[in-house]
């Protein structure tokens, strides 16, 4: 097994679909999809999505790997889990979208790299790795500046009112980041986990 998903040579070549079934958390249940549309119809941000989960699943079956991994559908999941609880075939739709996003990042799809969610996640996981905690302040700033200094300042300014208010009422603290005591322990565990995942074929995210 390779860590990279196979690229189908023709329509309904199942190589990609099978890879998804086997390598994506809950992917095996995707085979049960009967294309009823409940997930897409239930989706909070369906209007922002190019395909919606239902059609995306059909495209996976059809082997449309590039279209799937460059789709904005996988980035617009707000994790409301309506799709998961309503799916008549118990397909864990949201989980699958999350994992597909991971795959898109891992396989270097350009769309994935420019997604705001990716950048936010990058900042987020940096904070978790470094401090063991999410420092909302640092995560936000990192995220704002992920597109460069000037864009960052612009964004920062847009949120400055909110940030100022937060600070004023004590919902954004000033000072050193919160952090856990045993940061070494956490780092070792996460490093080991990444190693195990790589061993199984999935890489452990962008370095």
């Amino acid at each position: 097994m390779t860590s990279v998903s196979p690229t189908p040579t023709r329509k309904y070549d199942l190589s990609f679909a099978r890879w998804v079934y086997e390598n994506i958390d809950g992917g095996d249940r995707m085979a049960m999809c009967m294309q009823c549309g409940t997930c897409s119809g239930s989706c909070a941000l369906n209007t922002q999505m190019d395909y919606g989960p239902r059609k995306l699943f059909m495209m996976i079956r059809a082997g449309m790997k590039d279209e799937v991994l460059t789709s904005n559908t996988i980035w617009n999941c707000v994790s409301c889990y309506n799709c998961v609880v309503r799916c008549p075939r118990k397909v864990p739709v949201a989980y699958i979208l999350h994992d597909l996003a991971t795959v898109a990042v891992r396989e270097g799809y350009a769309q994935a790299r420019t997604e705001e969610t990716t950048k936010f996640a990058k900042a987020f996981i940096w904070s978790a790795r470094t401090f063991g905690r999410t420092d909302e302040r640092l995560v936000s700033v990192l995220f704002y500046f992920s597109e460069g200094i000037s864009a960052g300042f612009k964004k920062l300014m847009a949120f400055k009112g909110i940030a100022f208010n937060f600070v004023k009422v004590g919902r954004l603290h000033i000072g050193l980041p919160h952090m856990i005591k045993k940061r070494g322990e956490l780092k070792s565990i996460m490093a080991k986990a990444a190693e195990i995942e790589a061993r199984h074929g999935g890489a452990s995210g962008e370095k």
Partner: protein
Amino acid sequence: MVAPAGRSETMTRKYTFYPGCASQGTGAHLETSLRAVLPKIGVEFQDVGDWNCCGASIGHVQGGHLPTAALSARNLSHAAEAGPQDVVTHCPACYLNTHYVNETIRGNESFKKDMNEALQAGGRSYDGALHVRHFCEVLVNDIGMDAVKANVTKPLKGLKVAGYVGCQTLRPFAGTERGGQYDTYEQPKFLDAFIEVTGAEPIRDFKFKTSCCGGAVSAISPQKTLGLIEGILKDATEKGADAICTPCALCQTNVEIYQDMVNQKFGTNYKIPVVFYTQLWALSFGMDPKKDAAMHQCLTPTDKIVAAAK
């Protein structure tokens, strides 16, 4: 699993508590008010030692699946040290991750093995013996509203409140056996009960009880989700709500802080306070509006709510 036998007002129930990162920041007022009301309703929390971030729902996009799950596994491993009692969280995202990782460890042997191998690298282990629960479910299934009602000395008479549950508090686990089966996904009643117990009037036909506020996407790209927030504000306002009440820190923040942006985009004029049910409880218990209810940490005026507690 602590079996809720009889309900006794004198009995104190002990749980291991996982606060989550928001409790240290944007959700500080939830943390304050929650901690304030706990002793009154007979609940004692012991925090997970040296807890870390749960990874939330998007962490794995960058972190990978197993490493992200390892965050929760480490917390569970520390929670197990606190004893066999149930682990409780209040943040839906924390609950989702921690519960999910816990259930996966319980149900998937190879995952359990991998995870323990990773934990071992930090000198830790976890066997899946705990039960991770959302505090709202605990309130419904273990505590009951009678225990809350007994403390109400200043009922919030005349206050109309829209109970906004949001997504992840319920979904996708509230209807499952290990999720406590405490309410329905579409027409939940528990939050209305939490509101009603204070003497306030819950808006039962509030249509957006379980609509999405945009979650993390609101924090990232609010322009995508302002429409979702507008719907919540609109129906609450139209139904005469004096406040929106929620159990979720992210919901509270999203619905509260984007009101200006919503107004700008939709030409509206919303200015409606968004509070936690624990804040309403603290007020109705006659506790200090600032020290206990942390009302000052809300970003929209809450005078009317505070004034209602008489």
